[in-house]
Protein backbone atom coordinates (compact mmCIF):
# COMPACT_ATOMS: atom_id res chain seq x y z
CA UNK A 1 0.00 0.00 0.00
CA UNK A 2 3.07 2.21 0.22
CA UNK A 3 3.18 3.75 -3.25
CA UNK A 4 6.37 5.76 -2.95
CA UNK A 5 8.53 5.32 -6.03
CA UNK A 6 11.65 6.90 -7.45
CA UNK A 7 11.33 9.32 -10.33
CA UNK A 8 13.07 6.83 -12.58
CA UNK A 9 10.96 3.79 -11.77
CA UNK A 10 7.71 5.75 -11.86
CA UNK A 11 8.33 7.16 -15.34
CA UNK A 12 9.69 3.82 -16.56
CA UNK A 13 6.07 2.57 -16.38
CA UNK A 14 5.39 4.65 -19.52
CA UNK A 15 5.77 2.94 -22.92
CA UNK A 16 6.41 4.39 -26.35
CA UNK A 17 3.09 5.36 -27.92
CA UNK A 18 1.35 5.87 -24.57
CA UNK A 19 -1.50 8.31 -24.07
CA UNK A 20 -0.69 10.60 -21.16
CA UNK A 21 -2.89 13.07 -19.30
CA UNK A 22 -0.83 15.89 -17.83
CA UNK A 23 -2.20 18.07 -15.03
CA UNK A 24 -1.88 21.81 -14.96
CA UNK A 25 -3.59 24.95 -16.17
CA UNK A 26 -0.58 26.94 -17.29
CA UNK A 27 2.20 26.23 -14.79
CA UNK A 28 0.21 25.53 -11.61
CA UNK A 29 -0.39 21.79 -11.39
CA UNK A 30 2.11 20.94 -14.12
CA UNK A 31 4.40 18.11 -12.95
CA UNK A 32 7.63 19.62 -14.28
CA UNK A 33 9.92 17.04 -12.64
CA UNK A 34 7.96 14.09 -14.03
CA UNK A 35 8.10 15.70 -17.47
CA UNK A 36 11.87 16.23 -17.23
CA UNK A 37 12.35 12.55 -16.43
CA UNK A 38 10.17 11.61 -19.40
CA UNK A 39 12.47 13.73 -21.58
CA UNK A 40 15.50 11.99 -20.07
CA UNK A 41 14.05 8.50 -20.64
CA UNK A 42 12.97 9.48 -24.14
CA UNK A 43 9.68 7.63 -24.73
CA UNK A 44 8.28 8.64 -28.13
CA UNK A 45 5.07 8.61 -30.17
CA UNK A 46 3.17 9.98 -27.19
CA UNK A 47 -0.35 11.41 -27.16
CA UNK A 48 -0.60 14.18 -24.58
CA UNK A 49 -3.81 15.47 -23.04
CA UNK A 50 -3.42 18.80 -21.25
CA UNK A 51 -5.45 21.98 -20.93
CA UNK A 52 -2.69 23.96 -22.68
CA UNK A 53 0.82 23.43 -24.06
CA UNK A 54 2.54 25.32 -21.24
CA UNK A 55 4.75 28.12 -22.55
CA UNK A 56 7.66 27.78 -24.90
CA UNK A 57 10.64 25.85 -23.45
CA UNK A 58 8.89 24.69 -20.28
CA UNK A 59 6.68 21.78 -19.28
CA UNK A 60 5.07 19.75 -22.04
CA UNK A 61 6.32 22.25 -24.61
CA UNK A 62 9.77 20.73 -24.06
CA UNK A 63 8.40 17.24 -24.75
CA UNK A 64 6.74 18.52 -27.90
CA UNK A 65 9.76 20.52 -29.07
CA UNK A 66 11.86 17.41 -28.38
CA UNK A 67 9.84 15.41 -30.92
CA UNK A 68 8.44 12.90 -28.41
CA UNK A 69 4.81 13.85 -29.01
CA UNK A 70 2.67 12.70 -31.92
CA UNK A 71 -0.62 14.26 -30.88
CA UNK A 72 -1.83 16.89 -28.43
CA UNK A 73 -5.42 17.05 -27.14
CA UNK A 74 -5.99 20.44 -25.56
CA UNK A 75 -8.29 23.42 -25.10
CA UNK A 76 -6.09 26.44 -25.85
CA UNK A 77 -2.42 26.83 -26.79
CA UNK A 78 -2.45 30.58 -27.49
CA UNK A 79 0.42 31.34 -25.10
CA UNK A 80 2.83 29.08 -27.00
CA UNK A 81 3.86 30.35 -30.45
CA UNK A 82 6.28 27.48 -30.94
CA UNK A 83 3.61 24.79 -30.56
CA UNK A 84 1.12 26.81 -32.63
CA UNK A 85 3.79 26.86 -35.33
CA UNK A 86 4.27 23.09 -35.13
CA UNK A 87 0.51 22.64 -35.37
CA UNK A 88 0.33 24.90 -38.40
CA UNK A 89 3.24 23.24 -40.23
CA UNK A 90 1.76 19.82 -39.56
CA UNK A 91 4.58 18.45 -37.41
CA UNK A 92 2.18 18.10 -34.47
CA UNK A 93 -1.38 16.79 -34.63
CA UNK A 94 -3.67 18.85 -32.39
CA UNK A 95 -7.31 18.36 -31.34
CA UNK A 96 -9.20 21.01 -29.40
CA UNK A 97 -12.22 20.72 -27.13
CA UNK A 98 -14.03 23.37 -25.11
CA UNK A 99 -12.32 23.52 -21.74
CA UNK A 100 -15.16 22.22 -19.59
CA UNK A 101 -15.98 19.56 -22.16
CA UNK A 102 -12.40 18.30 -22.03
CA UNK A 103 -12.62 18.25 -18.23
CA UNK A 104 -15.93 16.39 -18.35
CA UNK A 105 -14.72 13.87 -20.96
CA UNK A 106 -11.85 13.01 -18.65
CA UNK A 107 -14.07 12.79 -15.58
CA UNK A 108 -16.51 10.58 -17.50
CA UNK A 109 -13.83 7.93 -17.94
CA UNK A 110 -12.97 8.43 -14.29
CA UNK A 111 -16.58 7.73 -13.36
CA UNK A 112 -16.59 4.48 -15.35
CA UNK A 113 -19.03 5.87 -17.93
CA UNK A 114 -18.67 5.94 -21.70
CA UNK A 115 -19.93 9.36 -22.68
CA UNK A 116 -22.31 12.16 -21.82
CA UNK A 117 -25.01 14.21 -23.52
CA UNK A 118 -24.44 17.92 -24.00
CA UNK A 119 -25.61 20.86 -26.06
CA UNK A 120 -22.32 22.77 -25.98
CA UNK A 121 -21.33 23.73 -29.52
CA UNK A 122 -24.18 21.62 -30.87
CA UNK A 123 -24.67 23.75 -33.99
CA UNK A 124 -21.05 24.83 -34.34
CA UNK A 125 -18.20 23.56 -36.44
CA UNK A 126 -16.83 21.55 -33.50
CA UNK A 127 -19.76 19.13 -33.77
CA UNK A 128 -19.77 16.25 -36.21
CA UNK A 129 -23.43 15.62 -37.15
CA UNK A 130 -22.88 11.88 -36.66
CA UNK A 131 -22.52 12.52 -32.92
CA UNK A 132 -25.92 14.24 -32.70
CA UNK A 133 -28.98 12.25 -31.67
CA UNK A 134 -32.55 13.22 -30.99
CA UNK A 135 -33.37 12.05 -27.51
CA UNK A 136 -36.51 12.79 -25.47
CA UNK A 137 -37.48 15.28 -28.17
CA UNK A 138 -34.26 17.24 -27.92
CA UNK A 139 -31.16 17.36 -30.13
CA UNK A 140 -28.11 16.44 -28.06
CA UNK A 141 -24.52 15.62 -28.80
CA UNK A 142 -22.82 12.51 -27.45
CA UNK A 143 -19.38 13.38 -26.09
CA UNK A 144 -17.30 10.21 -25.74
CA UNK A 145 -15.30 9.68 -22.56
CA UNK A 146 -11.58 10.35 -22.96
CA UNK A 147 -9.20 7.69 -21.66
CA UNK A 148 -5.44 7.65 -21.11
CA UNK A 149 -2.88 5.04 -20.11
CA UNK A 150 -1.09 7.38 -17.72
CA UNK A 151 -1.74 10.56 -15.75
CA UNK A 152 1.11 12.78 -14.54
CA UNK A 153 0.05 15.24 -11.87
CA UNK A 154 1.50 17.63 -9.34
CA UNK A 155 0.16 17.53 -5.79
CA UNK A 156 0.78 19.86 -2.90
CA UNK A 157 0.91 17.00 -0.40
CA UNK A 158 0.77 13.23 -0.74
CA UNK A 159 0.81 10.51 1.86
CA UNK A 160 2.46 7.12 1.34
CA UNK A 161 -0.83 5.58 0.22
CA UNK A 162 -1.39 8.24 -2.45
CA UNK A 163 -3.98 10.47 -0.81
CA UNK A 164 -3.43 13.87 -2.44
CA UNK A 165 -4.19 17.52 -1.78
CA UNK A 166 -3.75 20.38 -4.23
CA UNK A 167 -2.97 24.03 -3.66
CA UNK A 168 -5.02 26.92 -5.08
CA UNK A 169 -5.38 26.77 -8.89
CA UNK A 170 -2.91 23.89 -9.14
CA UNK A 171 -5.93 21.60 -8.67
CA UNK A 172 -7.54 22.19 -12.10
CA UNK A 173 -7.53 18.92 -14.14
CA UNK A 174 -5.44 16.88 -11.66
CA UNK A 175 -8.21 15.16 -9.66
CA UNK A 176 -10.09 14.30 -12.87
CA UNK A 177 -7.04 12.83 -14.57
CA UNK A 178 -6.25 10.82 -11.43
CA UNK A 179 -9.68 9.20 -11.74
CA UNK A 180 -9.40 8.56 -15.47
CA UNK A 181 -5.97 7.09 -16.21
CA UNK A 182 -4.91 3.50 -15.57
CA UNK A 183 -1.52 4.46 -14.12
CA UNK A 184 -1.45 7.63 -12.04
CA UNK A 185 1.88 9.16 -11.06
CA UNK A 186 1.79 12.06 -8.62
CA UNK A 187 4.80 14.22 -7.82
CA UNK A 188 4.98 16.32 -4.67
CA UNK A 189 7.55 18.05 -2.53
CA UNK A 190 5.58 17.15 0.61
CA UNK A 191 5.39 13.42 1.29
CA UNK A 192 3.73 12.75 4.63
CA UNK A 193 2.82 9.67 6.65
CA UNK A 194 -0.74 8.30 6.42
CA UNK A 195 -2.95 10.17 8.85
CA UNK A 196 -1.17 13.50 8.40
CA UNK A 197 -3.84 14.57 5.91
CA UNK A 198 -7.27 14.94 7.52
CA UNK A 199 -9.74 12.58 5.77
CA UNK A 200 -12.03 15.55 4.95
CA UNK A 201 -9.13 17.46 3.36
CA UNK A 202 -8.19 14.75 0.85
CA UNK A 203 -8.83 15.96 -2.71
CA UNK A 204 -7.88 12.71 -4.47
CA UNK A 205 -8.38 9.47 -2.50
CA UNK A 206 -5.51 7.00 -2.58
CA UNK A 207 -7.38 4.34 -4.56
CA UNK A 208 -6.87 6.37 -7.73
CA UNK A 209 -3.09 6.79 -7.36
CA UNK A 210 -0.42 4.33 -8.52
CA UNK A 211 2.86 6.01 -7.60
CA UNK A 212 3.95 8.87 -5.34
CA UNK A 213 7.23 10.53 -6.29
CA UNK A 214 9.02 12.93 -3.95
CA UNK A 215 10.53 15.79 -5.96
CA UNK A 216 12.40 19.01 -5.34
CA UNK A 217 10.44 22.03 -6.46
CA UNK A 218 13.55 24.21 -6.65
CA UNK A 219 13.39 24.32 -10.45
CA UNK A 220 12.56 27.81 -11.72
CA UNK A 221 9.37 26.52 -13.41
CA UNK A 222 7.83 26.12 -9.95
CA UNK A 223 8.56 29.72 -9.05
CA UNK A 224 7.08 33.06 -10.08
CA UNK A 225 7.28 34.04 -13.73
CA UNK A 226 8.41 37.57 -14.37
CA UNK A 227 5.92 40.05 -15.72
CA UNK A 228 2.87 38.16 -14.44
CA UNK A 229 2.53 40.20 -11.26
CA UNK A 230 2.05 43.88 -10.52
CA UNK A 231 5.11 45.94 -9.72
Amino acid at each position, binding site marked *: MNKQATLEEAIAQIRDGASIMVGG*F*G*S*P*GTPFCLIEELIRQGQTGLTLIK*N*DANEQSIGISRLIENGQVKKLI*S*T*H*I*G*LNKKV*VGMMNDGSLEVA*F*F*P*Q*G*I*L*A*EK*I*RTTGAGSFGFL*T*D*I*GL*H*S*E*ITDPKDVIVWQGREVKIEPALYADVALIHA*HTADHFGNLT*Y*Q*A*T*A*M*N*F*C*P*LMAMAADTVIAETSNVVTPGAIQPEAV*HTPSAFVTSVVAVDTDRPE*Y*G*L*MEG*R*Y*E*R
Partner: protein
Amino acid sequence: MSVEKILKRAAREIQDGQTINLGIGLPTMLVEYLPLDHDVMIHSENGVLGTGRKANEKEANPYLIDAGGSYVTTRPGAAFFDSAVSFAMIRRSKLDMSVMGAFEVDQEGNLANWKIPGKFSPGIGGAMELAQKTGTILILCTHTDKYGKSKILKKCTLPLTAEKCVSRIITDMAVMDVTPEGLVLREVAEGLTPEEVIKATDAELIPADTIGSF
Protein backbone atom coordinates in the same frame (compact mmCIF):
# COMPACT_ATOMS: atom_id res chain seq x y z
CA MET B 1 -7.30 55.85 -24.01
CA SER B 2 -10.21 54.15 -25.74
CA VAL B 3 -9.49 51.09 -23.61
CA GLU B 4 -9.96 53.13 -20.47
CA LYS B 5 -13.18 54.57 -21.83
CA ILE B 6 -14.57 51.12 -22.50
CA LEU B 7 -13.56 49.82 -19.09
CA LYS B 8 -14.96 52.79 -17.18
CA ARG B 9 -18.28 52.43 -18.94
CA ALA B 10 -18.28 48.65 -18.54
CA ALA B 11 -17.67 48.88 -14.79
CA ARG B 12 -21.11 50.49 -14.44
CA GLU B 13 -22.71 47.27 -15.73
CA ILE B 14 -21.61 45.22 -12.77
CA GLN B 15 -24.22 45.00 -10.02
CA ASP B 16 -23.53 44.60 -6.35
CA GLY B 17 -23.67 40.92 -5.40
CA GLN B 18 -23.12 39.52 -8.88
CA THR B 19 -21.03 36.51 -9.83
CA ILE B 20 -19.11 37.27 -13.01
CA ASN B 21 -16.47 35.84 -15.30
CA LEU B 22 -14.00 38.16 -16.96
CA GLY B 23 -12.46 36.95 -20.22
CA ILE B 24 -8.78 37.21 -21.07
CA GLY B 25 -7.59 40.65 -22.23
CA LEU B 26 -9.73 43.73 -21.89
CA PRO B 27 -12.38 42.14 -19.62
CA THR B 28 -9.78 41.00 -17.04
CA MET B 29 -8.64 44.62 -16.70
CA LEU B 30 -12.13 45.48 -15.51
CA VAL B 31 -11.18 44.33 -11.98
CA GLU B 32 -9.30 47.59 -11.43
CA TYR B 33 -12.37 49.65 -12.39
CA LEU B 34 -15.05 48.02 -10.24
CA PRO B 35 -16.82 50.35 -7.80
CA LEU B 36 -15.31 49.91 -4.35
CA ASP B 37 -18.71 49.66 -2.68
CA HIS B 38 -19.70 46.72 -4.87
CA ASP B 39 -19.33 43.25 -3.49
CA VAL B 40 -18.68 41.03 -6.49
CA MET B 41 -17.59 37.40 -6.92
CA ILE B 42 -15.22 36.94 -9.81
CA HIS B 43 -15.06 33.46 -11.28
CA SER B 44 -11.91 32.30 -12.99
CA GLU B 45 -12.43 29.18 -15.04
CA ASN B 46 -9.16 27.57 -13.90
CA GLY B 47 -10.88 26.93 -10.58
CA VAL B 48 -11.48 29.99 -8.42
CA LEU B 49 -14.56 31.79 -7.25
CA GLY B 50 -13.47 35.05 -5.64
CA THR B 51 -10.34 36.35 -7.32
CA GLY B 52 -9.29 39.90 -6.47
CA ARG B 53 -6.92 42.33 -8.16
CA LYS B 54 -3.56 41.23 -9.56
CA ALA B 55 -0.97 40.24 -6.97
CA ASN B 56 2.25 42.17 -6.52
CA GLU B 57 5.56 40.37 -6.27
CA LYS B 58 5.25 39.97 -2.52
CA GLU B 59 1.70 38.63 -2.56
CA ALA B 60 2.07 36.45 -5.64
CA ASN B 61 1.71 32.69 -5.11
CA PRO B 62 3.13 30.66 -8.01
CA TYR B 63 0.18 28.25 -7.65
CA LEU B 64 -2.49 30.94 -7.86
CA ILE B 65 -3.17 32.43 -11.26
CA ASP B 66 -6.24 33.58 -13.16
CA ALA B 67 -7.28 32.07 -16.48
CA GLY B 68 -5.08 34.58 -18.29
CA GLY B 69 -1.97 33.44 -16.43
CA SER B 70 -1.57 36.46 -14.11
CA TYR B 71 -0.89 36.01 -10.43
CA VAL B 72 -3.94 37.17 -8.55
CA THR B 73 -5.13 37.73 -5.03
CA THR B 74 -8.29 36.20 -3.59
CA ARG B 75 -10.97 37.79 -1.45
CA PRO B 76 -12.35 36.44 1.83
CA GLY B 77 -14.95 33.83 0.96
CA ALA B 78 -13.05 32.56 -2.08
CA ALA B 79 -13.13 28.89 -3.01
CA PHE B 80 -10.88 26.67 -5.16
CA PHE B 81 -12.22 23.71 -7.14
CA ASP B 82 -11.34 21.45 -10.05
CA SER B 83 -12.02 22.17 -13.73
CA ALA B 84 -15.07 19.89 -13.87
CA VAL B 85 -16.74 21.77 -11.01
CA SER B 86 -15.65 25.08 -12.51
CA PHE B 87 -17.45 24.34 -15.75
CA ALA B 88 -20.36 22.68 -13.98
CA MET B 89 -20.89 26.11 -12.45
CA ILE B 90 -20.79 27.66 -15.93
CA ARG B 91 -22.96 25.11 -17.74
CA ARG B 92 -25.45 25.01 -14.84
CA SER B 93 -25.78 28.80 -15.40
CA LYS B 94 -24.67 29.87 -11.93
CA LEU B 95 -22.81 32.92 -13.29
CA ASP B 96 -24.77 36.16 -13.64
CA MET B 97 -22.60 37.71 -16.32
CA SER B 98 -19.66 36.94 -18.56
CA VAL B 99 -17.64 39.80 -19.97
CA MET B 100 -15.87 38.83 -23.19
CA GLY B 101 -13.93 40.23 -26.10
CA ALA B 102 -15.01 39.77 -29.71
CA PHE B 103 -13.61 39.53 -33.23
CA GLU B 104 -17.15 40.02 -34.55
CA VAL B 105 -20.61 40.48 -33.04
CA ASP B 106 -23.73 40.78 -35.08
CA GLN B 107 -27.11 42.40 -34.69
CA GLU B 108 -28.73 39.07 -33.75
CA GLY B 109 -26.34 38.71 -30.85
CA ASN B 110 -24.18 36.07 -32.48
CA LEU B 111 -20.60 36.10 -31.23
CA ALA B 112 -17.32 35.12 -32.91
CA ASN B 113 -14.26 35.34 -30.69
CA TRP B 114 -12.30 32.11 -30.89
CA LYS B 115 -11.08 31.42 -34.39
CA ILE B 116 -10.03 33.13 -37.63
CA PRO B 117 -9.68 30.25 -40.09
CA GLY B 118 -6.23 30.05 -41.58
CA LYS B 119 -4.90 32.82 -39.36
CA PHE B 120 -5.67 32.26 -35.70
CA SER B 121 -6.86 29.06 -34.12
CA PRO B 122 -5.16 28.49 -30.79
CA GLY B 123 -8.18 26.64 -29.39
CA ILE B 124 -11.59 27.17 -27.87
CA GLY B 125 -10.72 27.51 -24.19
CA GLY B 126 -13.71 28.23 -22.01
CA ALA B 127 -15.35 30.74 -24.35
CA MET B 128 -17.97 28.48 -25.92
CA GLU B 129 -19.43 27.28 -22.64
CA LEU B 130 -19.36 30.75 -21.07
CA ALA B 131 -21.03 32.34 -24.11
CA GLN B 132 -23.67 29.65 -24.45
CA LYS B 133 -24.62 29.26 -20.79
CA THR B 134 -24.19 32.57 -18.96
CA GLY B 135 -27.39 34.55 -18.53
CA THR B 136 -25.93 37.89 -19.58
CA ILE B 137 -23.07 38.29 -22.04
CA LEU B 138 -21.41 41.68 -22.13
CA ILE B 139 -19.04 42.27 -25.03
CA LEU B 140 -16.16 44.71 -24.80
CA CYS B 141 -14.23 45.49 -27.99
CA THR B 142 -13.03 48.30 -30.16
CA HIS B 143 -15.73 49.38 -32.56
CA THR B 144 -13.54 48.79 -35.60
CA ASP B 145 -10.48 46.68 -36.38
CA LYS B 146 -7.09 48.11 -37.20
CA TYR B 147 -8.16 48.62 -40.82
CA GLY B 148 -11.17 50.66 -39.70
CA LYS B 149 -13.59 47.85 -40.51
CA SER B 150 -16.63 47.53 -38.23
CA LYS B 151 -16.60 44.61 -35.79
CA ILE B 152 -20.34 45.11 -35.25
CA LEU B 153 -21.87 43.31 -38.19
CA LYS B 154 -25.18 42.48 -39.82
CA LYS B 155 -24.06 38.86 -39.80
CA CYS B 156 -20.91 37.28 -38.40
CA THR B 157 -18.58 35.77 -40.99
CA LEU B 158 -16.25 33.85 -38.65
CA PRO B 159 -17.03 30.54 -36.90
CA LEU B 160 -19.36 31.34 -34.02
CA THR B 161 -18.53 30.96 -30.36
CA ALA B 162 -22.25 30.85 -29.61
CA GLU B 163 -25.48 31.80 -31.32
CA LYS B 164 -27.70 34.64 -30.11
CA CYS B 165 -25.93 34.95 -26.80
CA VAL B 166 -24.97 38.62 -26.52
CA SER B 167 -26.98 41.09 -24.41
CA ARG B 168 -24.96 44.29 -24.58
CA ILE B 169 -21.93 45.57 -26.51
CA ILE B 170 -19.68 48.34 -25.25
CA THR B 171 -17.07 49.75 -27.64
CA ASP B 172 -14.97 52.90 -27.68
CA MET B 173 -17.77 54.49 -29.76
CA ALA B 174 -21.07 53.19 -28.42
CA VAL B 175 -23.21 51.14 -26.08
CA MET B 176 -25.58 48.83 -27.96
CA ASP B 177 -28.22 46.33 -26.85
CA VAL B 178 -29.33 43.21 -28.65
CA THR B 179 -33.15 43.24 -28.59
CA PRO B 180 -35.86 41.24 -30.33
CA GLU B 181 -36.27 44.26 -32.65
CA GLY B 182 -32.58 44.41 -33.52
CA LEU B 183 -29.46 46.18 -32.29
CA VAL B 184 -30.40 49.31 -30.36
CA LEU B 185 -27.96 52.24 -30.04
CA ARG B 186 -28.23 53.38 -26.41
CA GLU B 187 -25.24 55.63 -25.89
CA VAL B 188 -22.49 57.21 -27.95
CA ALA B 189 -19.03 58.26 -26.79
CA GLU B 190 -18.56 61.91 -25.92
CA GLY B 191 -17.63 63.93 -28.99
CA LEU B 192 -19.42 61.57 -31.38
CA THR B 193 -22.87 61.95 -32.92
CA PRO B 194 -25.22 59.00 -33.37
CA GLU B 195 -24.86 59.51 -37.13
CA GLU B 196 -21.10 59.09 -36.93
CA VAL B 197 -21.51 55.86 -34.97
CA ILE B 198 -24.13 54.54 -37.37
CA LYS B 199 -21.83 55.34 -40.31
CA ALA B 200 -18.92 53.45 -38.71
CA THR B 201 -21.12 50.40 -38.06
CA ASP B 202 -21.91 47.59 -40.48
CA ALA B 203 -24.89 46.38 -38.41
CA GLU B 204 -28.21 48.16 -38.69
CA LEU B 205 -28.40 50.28 -35.56
CA ILE B 206 -31.80 51.28 -34.21
CA PRO B 207 -31.42 54.60 -32.36
CA ALA B 208 -33.01 54.51 -28.92
CA ASP B 209 -35.65 57.14 -28.12
CA THR B 210 -33.05 58.99 -26.10
CA ILE B 211 -29.41 58.36 -26.78
CA GLY B 212 -27.11 59.01 -23.86
CA SER B 213 -23.40 59.72 -23.90
CA PHE B 214 -20.48 58.24 -21.96
